[in-house]
């Protein structure tokens, strides 16, 4: 049986008008991402990866070309329709976590479900607890965001991305603010989610991370330069174990 297509881009272009000049941020990008893939999208700054991420995350619409998210055409959707689509199909993980201040882990994770009225308060809380357990924070449900370390905050953010059971998890430099050790811990988590069948897109400028994903797409000047399957996926858990032990001081 053929794998399900979660994301399909057909010749997506995105132009910005800056003064009298037109900036071509995306110059015709086409690819399909199948269910269960762990894709890294790489590129230097200015390569168009942020623009692409905004397209994938339904935060923006293409100037031309087509984008199907889980079979839904996004191009002509209105703002509010895209908001609902994000709510149901996408889980975002940001570089700087973006947790609500002075709010507990559970409440942060509940946030996306607050905008989904089909969930009751009880269901919402249960789903949030489940998601936090999945990222290994089952014992920190009531911790407030300012009482947690960077790694813990990012775990909460990942739990928040998982809670609506999205078609795709979009991570934007999700390890960018973390030290090496915590970064690897995050990668271990992402690999675990990948093994569980989640579709993950990880946008980064760090080529190292590509070794741990199943597919790498490299952007340059708004076009795809390289799109390769990674046949030799490294195990992040091993890499983590090989790291020098943290010194207790």
């Amino acid at each position: 049986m053929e794998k399900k297509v979660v994301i399909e881009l057909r010749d997506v272009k995105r132009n910005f008008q800056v003064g009298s000049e037109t900036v071509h941020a995306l110059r015709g990008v086409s690819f399909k991402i199948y269910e269960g893939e762990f894709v890294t999208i790489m590129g230097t700054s200015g390569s168009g990866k942020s623009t692409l991420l905004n397209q994938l995350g339904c935060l923006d619409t293409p100037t031309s070309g087509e984008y199907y998210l889980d079979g839904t055409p996004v191009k002509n959707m209105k703002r509010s329709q895209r908001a609902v689509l994000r709510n149901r199909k996408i889980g975002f993980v940001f570089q700087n976590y973006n947790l609500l201040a002075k709010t507990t882990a559970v409440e942060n994770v509940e946030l996306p479900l607050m905008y989904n009225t089909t969930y009751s308060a009880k269901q919402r809380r249960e789903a949030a607890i489940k998601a936090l357990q999945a990222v290994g924070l089952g014992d920190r449900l009531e911790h407030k965001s300012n009482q947690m370390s960077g790694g813990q905050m990012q775990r909460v953010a990942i739990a928040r991305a998982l809670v609506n059971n999205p078609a795709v998890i979009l991570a934007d430099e999700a390890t960018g603010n973390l030290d090496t050790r915590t970064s690897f811990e995050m990668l271990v988590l992402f690999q675990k989610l990948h093994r569980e069948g989640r579709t993950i897109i990880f946008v980064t400028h760090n080529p190292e991370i590509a070794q741990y994903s199943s597919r790498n797409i490299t952007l340059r000047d708004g076009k795809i330069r390289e799109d390769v399957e990674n046949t030799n996926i490294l195990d992040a858990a091993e890499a983590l174990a090989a790291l020098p032990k943290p010194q207790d001081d």
Partner: protein
Amino acid sequence: MSFTNLIRVAITAILSNKSRTLLSTLGIIIGVAAVIIMMAIGQGSKESIRKEISKMGSNVITIRPGADTRGGVRQDPSAMQTLKMSDYESMLSGLKYVQHVSPEVSQSGQVVNGNNNTVTTVYGVSPEYLSIRLWKVQEGDSFTDEDVRKNTKVCIIGKTVADELFPDGQNPIGRTIRFKNIPFRVVGVLKSKGYNNWGMDQDNLMIAPYTTVMKRLAAQNYFSTINVSALSEEMSEKAINELTQLLRANHKIKDGADDDFTIRSQQEIMETMTTTMDTVTLILVVAAAFSLLVAGIGIMNIMLVSVTERTKEIGLRMSVGARGRDISRQFLFESIIISLTGGLIGIGVGYLGSWVAMLMSLPASVPLWSVLLSFGVCACIGLIFGYVPARKAALMDPIEAIRYE
């Protein structure tokens, strides 16, 4: 987002910035309290005037001679001699809405008892006068119709007169006092009414049969006033019509010609006075309402700051699926909750202020509608002044908002 979630989110946001919230609520609190206290004092004054007037009989109708022009000269109404004995007599029977009638002639002057004297006014009236003006005789008795018929020199005196003339607690009943050298035997002392709202001592008077006053003191055969009481306050209007028709017929006034008398009900007097109070109250309330407006602008200002500060939060909420209207509702709820809370506290402070005003012997009574009105106005303020910030938040671009530092 559901209603309960909206409220929860709004309250959390409000509580996370307590001092700021407190300051913006303070404006509303002061505004609402000011409006309520002003309204309470206005209402209180009106009620106290009403009470004062109803103490004098709320169904009282006063007939006085009207101003007239004789040979092109405008005459002083009190010099007119249009209210005659025949008018009074014609009122005694056949009127449907009239309860009591009493003529009135008055004279001011010195009253003497031995070494003691005072200045007072003697009212020549019929015994019904007491029921019309709601006077009660505390000691002794009233004079009778018999006294009226026989021009007896008897009188009932007010508390002030009694105190002045009989300072050592002597019993005035049966004693004879002299008014302008005419001896009057005191048959009764009136129950005190105290001072009225205009600072007039209502107890400084003597009441005597009108026949006695007319013949022995004033030497006149007309009345200065005829006091009438309608069957009830509501029937005053009908009684006035009845009396007008009767007097016009008695005085043979042609259709279209002006009355040569004026009839005023206590109600009209009350309305005139309360209208003045209403105007004063309105001016005060409008002044107070401006402070509410300023408070509203304060809320808008603080909400605009809050929206800018929370750009990142807005971006996050949008990226996890909040629509523009979810965001705008969130901020609208915040501003409404701030202004309603302010309103509620303001109502409390208003009640407290009115109570203090009462302690300072200002008449104050908080009308319920002013509380409801203030509450409604607060909700509107939250809505109106929250709208601009809420819209600003809703129209944010999630891409820029989430990366805002």
